[in-house]
C-alpha cells in the first residue's frame, strides 16, 4: 500500500481543474496554461549559472513550455530526491550518474524513453556508446550529457616552481605512484605546499587501483576485490604519505567522503594536486586563479588500465512527470540544441553529440582545451566500461571511505580494516 494515494490526489486536482474550467467559461484568463517542466540537478556555482542560462534560452525558443530549474549540492541532492519520491512529486527531468542511476531504474522511479524516441525525443546524433550506457534490458532510460573519466588536476604554477616539466620528468599519461611520491616531495620542498591530496580514503582512486591490479570489483553481483589489493592500495598511499608528499593525514581524515570541489586541496591551496572527474576541470578552474593541468590517475609500473570512460551524467525522465512530451522535448534540446550546448560547454563532460563537439571547438576556453587534450591523451589507455554495479554499491563506497579513515589516523592495522571492509561490503550487497 502507498500512503500517498494517487486517486485521492487526482480527485482534489480534478476539483481544482473543474473550478478552472468554470473560470475559463466565464471568460476569465487562465493563469496556468503553460506546460511546466521541472529540471533538477546537482551542481556547483559554475554549472548552476550555465544551466539556468540554458533554461532561459529554451523557454525563449519554446513558447508554451516553461522549464524551471532546481539545484543543490551533490550531498543534499539525493536526500531531497528521496523525499520527493516519497511525496510523489519528483521533478520531471532529473540528473543521474552512472551507478546510483541503476537503483532508480530497477525500482521504477525512472521510466523508459523508447515511446518518445523519434517523436519528442531525438537521440539520433548521440554516440552509440553513450546510448548503450543508458540502456538497461534493451530499453533506453537515460540520455548521456557527456563523457567523463578520472583526472588528476594539478596546479601548473606550483609544478613549474618545483621544476616539474611535462616530457622531462613528468608524463601525465603514464606516471606511477612512485612518480607521484617523487614529484609531491619535490613540490613540498620547493614551495612549502603539500605536493598532493591523499587518496587513502578515496573510492574513485581505489576503483582505478583495482583495475590496475587486474582485479574486478563486481562479478555476478558479488564484491570480488581480493584483500591483498585493498591492503596494497593503502600501503601504496602510505608510501606516498611517508615520502612527505601529501597533506597531513588528519587533514585528509577530516575531508574523507566530502565531494565538494571547493574543499579539494587544489582549490583551498593546501596542496598542488587533487583528484576528480574530468568534467570537473571547468568547475574547479572557476574556483581558483592558478592554471590547472590535467593528467591521468597514477598507475603501477605494469600500466594495466584502471580508469574508465563513462557518461558523466544523464538526464532522465521520472515516473512523476505529468507531461512527458514536454519533458522529452526539453531533454532533446538539452543535448542537441547548438545554442544551448554552447552555453553548457564542457562543464558536464565531453558532449556525446559529434555536431555539438564540432560547434564547440572554435570557442573553447583554456580550461576546456585542457579537457579536450586530456581526452585525446587517454585514448587507448582506459579500461572497458564494467556492467552496472548492483544495488548497494553506493553504500559500499561510503563504507570504504569511512573505514579508510582508520588507516589514516591509527586504530586497527590496515589488514584488519581491509578484512572488515570486505566483510561489510559482502553484508551490504547481501542485504540490498
Amino acid at each position, binding site marked *: *500500500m502507498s500512503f500517498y494515494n494517487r486517486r485521492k490526489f487526482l480527485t482534489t486536482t480534478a476539483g481544482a481543474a473543474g473550478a478552472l474550467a468554470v473560470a475559463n467559461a466565464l471568460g476569465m484568463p487562465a493563469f496556468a496554461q503553460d506546460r511546466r517542466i521541472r529540471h533538477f540537478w546537482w551542481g556547483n556555482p559554475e554549472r548552476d549559472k550555465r544551466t539556468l542560462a540554458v533554461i532561459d534560452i529554451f523557454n525563449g525558443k519554446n513558447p508554451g513550455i516553461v522549464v524551471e530549474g532546481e539545484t543543490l549540492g551533490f550531498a543534499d541532492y539525493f536526500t531531497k530526491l528521496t*523525499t520527493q519520491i516519497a511525496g510523489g512529486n519528483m521533478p520531471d527531468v532529473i540528473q543521474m550518474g552512472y551507478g546510483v542511476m541503476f537503483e532508480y531504474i530497477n525500482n521504477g522511479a525512472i521510466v523508459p524513453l523508447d515511446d518518445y524516441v523519434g517523436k519528442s525525443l531525438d537521440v539520433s546524433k548521440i554516440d552509440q556508446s553513450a546510448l548503450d550506457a543508458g540502456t538497461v534490458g534493451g530499453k533506453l532510460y537515460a540520455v548521456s550529457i557527456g563523457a567523463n573519466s578520472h583526472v588528476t588536476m594539478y596546479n601548473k604554477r606550483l609544478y613549474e616552481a618545483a621544476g616539474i616539466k611535462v616530457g622531462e620528468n613528468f608524463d601525465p599519461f603514464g606516471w606511477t605512484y612512485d612518480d607521484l611520491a617523487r614529484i609531491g616531495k619535490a613540490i613540498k620542498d620547493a614551495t612549502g605546499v603539500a605536493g598532493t591530496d591523499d587518496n587513502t580514503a578515496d573510492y574513485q582512486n581505489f576503483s582505478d587501483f583495482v583495475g590496475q591490479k587486474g582485479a574486478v570489483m563486481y562479478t555476478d553481483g558479488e564484491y570480488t576485490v581480493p584483500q591483498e589489493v585493498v591492503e596494497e592500495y593503502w600501503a601504496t598511499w602510505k608510501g606516498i604519505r611517508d615520502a612527505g608528499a601529501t597533506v597531513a593525514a588528519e*587533514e585528509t581524515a577530516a575531508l574523507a567522503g566530502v565531494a565538494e570541489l571547493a574543499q579539494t586541496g587544489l582549490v583551498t591551496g593546501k596542496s598542488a594536486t587533487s583528484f576528480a572527474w574530468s568534467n570537473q576541470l571547468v568547475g574547479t578552474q572557476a574556483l581558483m586563479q592558478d592554471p590547472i593541468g590535467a593528467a591521468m590517475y597514477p598507475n603501477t609500473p605494469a600500466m594495466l588500465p584502471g580508469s574508465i570512460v563513462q557518461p558523466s551524467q544523464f538526464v532522465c525522465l521520472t515516473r512523476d512527470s505529468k507531461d512527458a512530451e514536454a519533458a522529452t522535448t526539453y531533454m532533446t534540446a538539452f543535448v542537441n540544441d547548438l545554442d544551448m550546448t554552447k552555453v553548457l560547454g564542457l562543464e558536464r563532460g565531453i558532449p556525446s553529440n559529434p555536431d555539438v563537439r564540432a560547434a564547440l571547438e572554435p570557442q573553447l576556453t583554456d580550461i576546456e582545451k585542457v579537457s579536450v587534450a586530456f581526452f585525446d591523451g587517454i585514448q587507448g589507455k582506459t579500461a572497458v566500461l564494467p556492467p552496472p554495479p548492483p544495488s548497494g554499491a553506493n553504500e559500499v563506497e561510503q563504507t570504504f571511505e569511512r573505514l579508510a579513515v582508520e588507516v589514516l*589516523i591509527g586504530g586497527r592495522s590496515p589488514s584488519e580494516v581491509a578484512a572488515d571492509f570486505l566483510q561489510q561490503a559482502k553484508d551490504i550487497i547481501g542485504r540490498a
Partner: protein
Amino acid sequence: MTKFIRKNLAGYAFLTPWLIGFLLLAIGPILASLYLSFTKYNVINPPRWIGLDNYTYMFGRDARFRKALQVTFTFVAFAVPAKLIFALGVAMVLDKGIRAIGLYRALFYLPSILGGSIAVAILWRQLFNADGVINSLLELVGINGPYWLADPNYSLWTLVVLAVWQFGSPMLIFLAGLRAIPQELYEAAEIDAASKVKQFFAITVPLLAPVIFFNLVLQMIEAFKSFSGAFIISGGSGAPLDSLLFYTVYLFNEAFSFLRMGYASALAWVLLLIIALFTAIAFWSSKYWVHYESERG
C-alpha cells in the same frame, strides 16, 4: 449536566484546528512509522511486510547501531550534567543584584535561541578547525592544538562543549527557581554561621530539587534527540570513524542515504522506547530526592 457538555463542546470546537493538525501531522505519521518499522521500504517501491526482521537485525547484527548507542549515551551522560551545573552556576551569579542584569540575562540566553540552528554548528566547525580560532589562540601560548573535529578522541567533546554553551533555557528556569527560595532561610543560616557551601547544599539544592528535576528530564530528552550539531560538523556521516554517529544521525543516514525507511522507522521506535525508559527511571528516582513543598514527607 447538559450545560456541562455544551460548555466542553465549545472548548473542543475551539480546539479543532489544533486537533486536526495533531491527528494528521503527528498521530498519523507516528502510526505510519510504527507500521513501516515492520516492513522493508525503500521509498521508491511500496513497503513489504517482513515482521520483526528489522528489530532482530538491529539487536543481533548491526554494529553501527551499537556504536550509535555508545556515542549517544556518552553524549547524554556528559552533556546533560555539565550543562545543568553550568546553567545553575550562571543562574546563581545572575541572581545577585548586578547592574544591567537584564542585559546579561539576554546575552547569556542568546546561544540557546540560536540553539539547534545550522549557523551555530557551522560556526563551531570554524572555531575548532585545524586552523580555526581555538587553535590560533592556543598557538599564541605555544600549544600546538589537535585536529579537534577530525580526531575521534576529541570530536565528541567539542559537541559536549557546544551543548553546554547553549545553557540559556535551563538557566532561566533555575533563575526563576532561585527567586522562589525565601531569603529568610539564608539569613537564618548566616546567623547560625553556616558556610556558603553548607548553605548551598542544605538550602539551595533541596529547595531547588523540583526545578533541577524538571530541567534534567527536559535536557535529557533533548540530548537523546540531538541531531543538527553532529550532522553538520561530521558532514552528515558521523565521521571521523563514527565518533559523531549520534543515534539520530545514523537514523537519518539509514533513511535518506541508504533508502531503508522501514529500518529507520524501527530505529526511531527504539529511540522512543529508550527515551521513555530513561524518563521513567528519572521519575522513579525523583521520589528519593525531590520533595515538593505541598507534600508531607
